[in-house]
């Protein structure tokens, strides 16, 4: 199984491969400015990696967390929560995704008082939504709840 450092190398190499694919598809010539940068990056990356890690064995990059595997899983859960929240946001809308994200994130990091966090977070998220939509005029991702709140604001503005 690949260690954290090898995975990191794959990600950085993938970033370079993104541009190599662009050059291959004719977005830029290899003799052009981006082509020169790309060639230099392709040459330097392996030299740097070999030079730095030649005498070191592969090891997990993240230092050991006190609490071991449980804390690792909680940290992964924290990241996963935000990944999922961002993914569902276009479908559920800002309020639902953000409320779920914040509450789940707090739970993952050890704050378990859901009876307190859910109502407080809901109010804060709705307030932020209202501030951003009504004051900053930034259209936020909308779902059924945002449409209902938008309708409510409209009716209030109409005075009915």
């Amino acid at each position: 199984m690949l260690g954290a450092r090898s995975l990191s190398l794959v990600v950085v190499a993938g970033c370079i491969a993104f541009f190599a694919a662009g050059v291959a598809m004719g977005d830029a010539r290899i003799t052009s400015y981006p082509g020169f940068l790309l060639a230099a990056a392709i040459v330097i990356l392996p030299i740097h990696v070999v030079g730095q890690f030649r005498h070191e064995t592969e090891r997990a990059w993240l230092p050991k967390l006190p609490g071991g595997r449980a804390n690792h899983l909680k940290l992964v859960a924290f990241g996963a929560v935000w990944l999922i929240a961002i993914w569902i946001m276009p479908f559920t809308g800002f309020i639902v995704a953000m409320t779920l994200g914040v509450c789940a994130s707090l739970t993952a990091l050890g704050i378990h008082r859901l009876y307190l966090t859910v109502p407080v977070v809901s109010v804060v998220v709705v307030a932020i939504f209202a501030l951003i939509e009504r004051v900053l005029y930034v259209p936020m991702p909308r779902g059924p709840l945002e449409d209902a709140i938008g309708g409510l604001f409209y009716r209030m503005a109409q005075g009915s």
Partner: protein
Amino acid sequence: MIEGIIVGLEPLALLAAVVGVLLGIVFGAIPGLTATLGIALLVPVTFLMETAHGMIMLGGVYAGAIYGGSITAILLNIPGTPASVVTAWEGHAMAREGDAPLALGLSAASVGVGGLISGFVLLWLTPLLASVALSFGPPEYLALIVFSLVIVCVMLSTPLLGNALAALLGLLIATVGTNPVTGSSRFTFGFYELTGGVGIVAILIGFFCMSQAILIGWAALTQHQKTDIVFGRGGTGGALVKALWARAGTLGRGTGIGLFLGILPAIGPETTPLTTHAVERRFSREADRFGKGSKTGLVVAESSMAANVGGSLIPLLALGIPGSGAAAVFVGALTLHGLKPGPLLFVEHPQSIYAFFVGFIVVYLTILMIGLFAARFFAVLLKIPNAVVATFVAAFSVLGAYAINNTMFDVWVMLGATLLSFCLAALRIPILPLVLGLILGLLFEENLVVAQSVVRGPEDLIDRPIAIGLALLSVALLAISIVRRKRGFKPRCSVPASGGSSRE
């Protein structure tokens, strides 16, 4: 100029300065939240305001956050920002000896004086530098950008090849979008969102905010910190004036060196206090007290840190070259407001820029007042649990990335940048050269294209002494750095390798 000064003294501008400083101090005082993060998160808020007021607020956040880090450093021995490491050594030792109010007062006064002097220098030196920069053509700009990238690469303590690779990656990412010569799309792969280039602010939020949220989350799972400091009484009146008066020379030296280092690209407020502390220790009569609660050590560190903030804005505004990570985000904010940093800024938007200069001076007056009379109240912020901080930093990172262009695409770009920042850190590749390359990339390419038609051969460079001088200086710096590293010398400039690691 006069109109700008009047705008800078309007009630709303003063309010923006005060609010910016308060928000900045909050960001700086909470460990893990940095000036860079504060500026990045508050950029969308500035769209509500007049441009000059928005810039003043962000300037207040920048300066306030750098000062705010000192509060936690002194009270808890936790540098709120990387710039407050030296403050933690000296200030916390003073606090443990029962001198917490004096340490906070000395810190506030040193920051206030250093910042005010840097504000006046900013007001007078920046236009001067900009007028010189107006004579710059494409070859001079090319040489200057190369010089900036070289100085960043040689100053960082990370491996030289890693630094160069980061700069190359930054320049490469900046090529995504529209080809400035042909106007055709490049490296967009059918994503229309990439036609205008990769969102720089989204990338910076990923590098400096979301990665920080993960690190704070990690801290929430591993650390439980409580303070045993008893906040004493007094120490902010006569004792403060006496202590400061006795160290007027130190204050001047700290400010001078901090300003000079701030003007140089790559040397941000994070590393300046380390340099000035070491210099002052060498010449001080109380050298043995340094690191154990030295008032002189605290004064020199704080004044240089504050002066560096003003200094880093000089090349940013005059030449468009950021002097630190926070300044880099500041460039993004200026650009989003339609202000393109560089010499033409003083020709096209003189009112906004002079209003900002005056606002910057007001910012430091505010810091001085808040620091002297209200710093102790900020200790209450320390009670916010790390889990809550991490969660809300993550939430505001998502919100900030989305609000730039109202698109989820930028949020995914931000997440990609977060992943990249950790991967680069794992491979010992620093973030700062990448950020500089990313910001200067388009300018570099545009000038490269024009320079190719202007300079046909070496004979065309004879009447361009600035370009030749900068190019030779870059080569010399690079050669010296390579030779010194071969001999085992390591630069002391241990700027955080990545946004993510800046908390360590």
